[in-house]
């Protein structure tokens, strides 16, 4: 019997995901370059210091547009319900692969929802603190420097979450990444990771 596939992400969702994902990585590397002298060589990613200074904000603008679209298309699925709160209480079992002790998740589990909310918040903070850094001359020195502090702190938060996101989506859970490549997952994967969603999808 051929493996049954379920559609998980539309073309538009995948496109936006990769726009945000790729720009985020470019921004992370060049941003880290500006954050610490030892990492300054990372400006090479965008052609050295002066061109990285010019391009980082433009890449940031593309990232911000993608991030806003992402928030708009996914926010309705991201509010936590009681099941999600129970899932968060059992997150330790999820990490330790004790699947039988984890409450069944819907299309997104509570971890993915929290990832969405944190990255949305970090994205907005990146944009808000990034605009003064793009056009610094209209701002007071102290304000600008605090913007740099905020920009850096949310980068650390977003960067660490990115590592977790990529790890869980690729090597930790094989079969997950294809949802963002051809947009499908196997029914077996869906029943295991998102039982409530699997049920909705297969009932009809």
């Amino acid at each position, binding site marked *: 019997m051929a493996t049954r596939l379920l559609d998980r992400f539309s073309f538009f969702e995948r496109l936006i995901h990769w726009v945000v994902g790729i720009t985020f990585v470019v921004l992370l590397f060049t941003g880290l370059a500006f954050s610490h002298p030892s990492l300054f060589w990372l400006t090479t990613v965008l052609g050295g210091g002066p061109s990285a200074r010019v391009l980082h904000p433009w890449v940031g603008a593309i990232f911000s547009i993608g991030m806003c679209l992402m928030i708009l298309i996914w926010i309705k699925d991201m509010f936590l319900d009681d099941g999600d709160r129970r899932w968060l209480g059992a997150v330790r079992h999820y*990490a330790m692969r004790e699947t039988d002790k984890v409450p069944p998740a819907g299309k997104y589990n509570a971890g993915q929802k929290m990832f969405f909310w944190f990255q949305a918040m970090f994205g907005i903070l990146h944009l808000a603190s990034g605009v003064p850094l793009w056009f610094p001359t209209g701002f007071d020195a102290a304000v600008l420097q605090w913007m740099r502090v905020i920009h850096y702190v949310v980068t650390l938060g977003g960067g660490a979450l990115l590592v977790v996101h990529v790890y869980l989506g690729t090597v930790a*859970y094989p079969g997950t990444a294809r949802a963002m490549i051809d947009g499908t997952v196997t029914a077996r994967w869906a029943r295991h990771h998102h039982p409530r969603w699997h049920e909705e999808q297969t009932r009809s």
Partner: protein
Amino acid sequence: MTDTLTVRRVSATPDALIPMDALRSDGPTYAKLVDISKCIGCKGCEVACKEWNDLGVEPTANFGSIQSHQDLSPKTWLLMRFNEVEIDGNLNWLIKKDACLHCEEPGCLYACPAPGAIVQYTNGIVDFNQEHCIGCQYCVTGCPFDIPRFDANTRKVSKCNMCIDRVESGLEPACVKTCPTNAISWGSKEDMLALADHKIETLQSRGYENAAVYNPAGVGGTHMMYVVPHGDRLEDYSLPSDPTASPAPMTALGFLRRIGAYFLSFSVIGALVHFLAYGPERLEEE
């Protein structure tokens, strides 16, 4: 006598806020002292600055002042500002030699994220190194005196470098050399402070009881100082009364960026350890 140009601070080094221990400190710490009461407004210093630094001519227009240009620019590092102010019923012509003050605690250097783009030497000079400048303009906002100017074509920032190439060779800056009334003096910071005291005494005996030296403590003192005849009217000279270099957010950023790269590395290590402990998930086929 030549100067050894020993480095004191370099921008975007992990400890840019903390001056380096000088390996050699055999040169003096210089200062320029501008006695505003002796300036006749000839602007010879502006011309000397243009000539020595090869800054070229910038066309200007009459805007109702004897002032040559309206503002500093990437090609005008020194501008004599003329403010007409009424004091005790008399018209006073307050002159300010507007150029880099070469702060002891340079806000521009603290703000700069490009390694080596701003260097402070033990002789007091704060120099911009355009080769390393990335054009972010954080120095422009970091400067409490509004001195650095951004060139939109080259995307580099520049300002007065105290004629560092002359100083290095034992010469005084071009503006000092050319001043016909000796309104600008050059020497060690100690000597210039002593000279300022002497000048202030003289001014006070002539009735300028508020005469003062401008060497603001908020930036650790400066290496261009002014003798201000009306020391109680700093704003009328376009001199900020309490300039600061605001190192607090930079201290916070310095601490964070010290731990930040480790923090991100730990998230990668954490994922690796988890993978070693639990491996990839295997789902049995149905």
